[in-house]
């Protein structure tokens, strides 16, 4: 029992490590049961399929780290997906991407400004910026359809020695590692831990909040582009799947919803795990209807292990405070 507890304890210390382990288990099961094993082609299409969720959940991760909430991801990806398939078709496709990423950033900016200057809770503001873009998308495209620029689809999907999607995912991970060591990245962690202390330290916390909402919005815009490229169509109902799965990816990725802590790399693992679950259930011969149940169970396990880690950290804090007391007395 104590051995098991110690093992659980070690497992629960690093959120990202935990998420990597989840993914590894899922992939091993998939590889074992897939007839012919996991081929390069299979992995390639799997990675492509996962890119939109990965990008969107990184955006959500940033906002969660600042101890805010952002529901707008699902709205922005829907609107951008529909616009990708229906609008600006005469534009240079790469310029289209830039425009839609900026559209996402603009919606994120609105979120940030309303939260900061309107002193409104993020969950309320982003509920509006979830529903409004979804509504606009429905007006624009009542039934799924449209055309997505071939150049871009090929850029993501063309078979290569190193899959394009893998390059994209690695680039995102690298960007995260750099970003969290920039001033903005460090203030992002600081604001989630103690906004007032950061303000008293002479940092403009308003600017930090608005910047993070905007970056998250840009990522949602990019995720919307990627949905269009993976599905090669526009669909005004696509966002519903993203509303909860972005948060699920963040949770499975080991980011606690307490602010001041979290990892985009964990969220990448989390998103990859969630996208693999239907595949694994399929090869295991389990009904597709079980996907939600299994996903829910995995989220629960992830959150539970995270809570154990948090409790252990708190115990350590209490102990160190106690020792500090003893130290002061002997001084």
């Amino acid at each position, binding site marked *: 029992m104590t051995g098991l507890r110690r093992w659980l304890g070690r497992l629960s210390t690093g959120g990202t490590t935990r998420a990597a382990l989840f993914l590894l288990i899922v992939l091993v099961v998939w590889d074992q049961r897939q007839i012919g094993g996991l081929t390069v082609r299979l992995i390639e299409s799997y990675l492509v399929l996962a890119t939109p969720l990965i990008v969107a959940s990184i955006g959500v991760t940033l906002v969660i780290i600042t101890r805010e909430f952002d529901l707008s991801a699902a709205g922005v990806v829907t609107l951008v997906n529909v616009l990708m398939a229906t609008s600006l078709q005469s534009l240079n496709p790469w310029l289209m991407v830039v425009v839609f990423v900026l559209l996402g950033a603009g919606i994120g900016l609105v979120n940030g400004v309303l939260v900061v200057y309107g002193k409104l809770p993020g969950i309320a503001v982003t509920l509006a910026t979830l529903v409004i873009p979804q509504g606009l998308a429905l007006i624009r495209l009542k039934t799924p359809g449209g055309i997505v620029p071939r150049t871009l689809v090929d850029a993501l999907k063309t078979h290569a020695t190193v899959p394009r999607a893998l390059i994209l995912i690695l680039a995102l991970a690298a960007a995260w590692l*750099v970003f969290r*060591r*920039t*001033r903005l990245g*460090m203030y992002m*962690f*600081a604001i989630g*831990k*103690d906004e*007032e*202390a*950061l*303000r*008293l*330290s*002479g*940092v*403009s916390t308003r600017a930090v909040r608005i910047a993070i909402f905007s970056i998250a919005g840009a990522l949602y815009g990019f995720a919307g582009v990627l949905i269009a490229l993976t599905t090669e169509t526009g669909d005004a109902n696509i966002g519903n799947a993203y509303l909860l799965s972005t948060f699920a990816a963040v949770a499975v990725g080991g980011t606690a919803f307490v602010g*001041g*802590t979290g990892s985009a790399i964990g969220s990448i693992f989390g998103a990859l795990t969630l996208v693999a679950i239907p595949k694994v259930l399929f090869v295991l011969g389990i009904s597709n209807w079980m996907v939600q149940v299994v996903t829910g169970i995995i989220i629960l396990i992830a959150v539970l292990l995270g809570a154990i880690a948090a409790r252990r950290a708190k115990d350590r*804090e*209490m102990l*160190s*405070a*106690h*020792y*500090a*007391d003893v*130290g*002061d*007395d002997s*001084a």
Partner: protein
Amino acid sequence: MVTALEVAGLSKSFGDARALENADLVLRQGEIHAIVGENGAGKSTLVKCLAGMVVPDAGEVSVRGALLSFGNSRASREAGISTSFQELSLLSNLTVGENLLIAELPTRLGIVGRRSVARRAKEVLDEWEVPDLDPDMLVEDLPLSAKQRLETLRAMYVRPSLLILDEPTAALPDTDWLFAKIRELVRAGTTVLYISHKLGEIRELCDRGTVLRNGEVVGSFDDSNFDANSLISMMIGRSIELVFPARQHELPPDAPTVLQTRGMTVGTKLRGVDLDIREGEIVGVAALEGQGQRALFYGLAGAGPMTGGTVTIDGRPYRAKTPRAALNSGRGIALVPEERKIEGLFADLSTVQNITSTALGRVTSFGLVRGAAEVQLAAGAGADAQLPAEFLAREVGQLSGGNQQKTVLARTALSGARVLLMFDPTRGIDPSAKLEVYGMLRRASAEGIALVFYSTEIPELVGLSDRVVVLYNGRIAAELTGEAIREDHILAAAVGHGGEIPDGPEQVK
């Protein structure tokens, strides 16, 4: 004479509460100027106005002749103001080095390099002779005294022209390092605003000082040979004479002990407190901000952790993990918390529902609350607490502070508690409501309830208590009974000043 800082007519209110009222202050170049005053005198508000964290309602501040623009921390910094805050502005999930350099983190190609931060921080730490702080250590792993030192160092190392230190020694075991560094800065031309309630330190360090009371400047002193007693009476002032109801019956000398604590400890906040509180006794607790009073009250009520010691009620060991357990354990401890609007009451529910919320079991049949019985129960308890009946049906959030307080008292009476803990029960309520609360205290005591109350208003402690316990730095600094319960005695003990009370936290055993 060069003027380093001039504050003219500064006023600030938070809602109805007046924090600063027309405050004037002039600092000479190169002086160490003390600001003293009781809790809530406006010291921290003044600091936050100067630091650009709070926008005053009226008034002007000029720094070396240049007008300061308010509410802009950058402007304050650029004017040469650097502040160490009382509540510590450190980020626990960043390292010592990152905290030290936070406002101006060094970047290369946009990246904040771990090593360059550590290197620069190490230079600062060495230069300022703080060898025991490791720049790579996370701030959350530091003891409180090291955090305090880091907070002051961060304000000092930029060598500001105006250094503001708000209670910089609250958690600092020895002041030698701090005072030496402050004097070094002053020799190099820095002006210092030193906020403290420790008169010994002020005598040692400061050249001049200003006394604040209720947000107003009420006095000043021009040298360190000030008379401590006259300074203390300036801090207390002569407020409206409130008439405290006299005790109806003498406390019987053989009244049994109800609540007893031995070595009660809460982390570093409360360090080994022994208390004996008898049936019907009213014990007042006096302390300046942050001396462990919250830990004592919340720990006893099960609303906060307890890390050591024992508590017994009527001789039986007691340890509550939650407020509900505290209420139910044998005969019960009830806490009337501070900030009633947040912690104690359900603002949207009716007064009736609030009064009966902890006693619903008495009016419930088959899992349903019997409305008529509930109202009857609440009306009885409300009448005992002098709460006018017309308020019963209203939402508690709409009641005045005094009536909210009576609601809490009525609820507590219904809970049948044996020990009643009241944390600052008269804060923010009007004088007549205060008198009613005093009457309620007396009645509860007459019914044999052991009462412990904390108040920031020292006259209340003097007027109501059978005994006054003064906390300082998490320990009992003085226990006063009978004729010894006097305002000057209480305040002297609370500021760590006075005959048998040692002057430094490290000597307080």
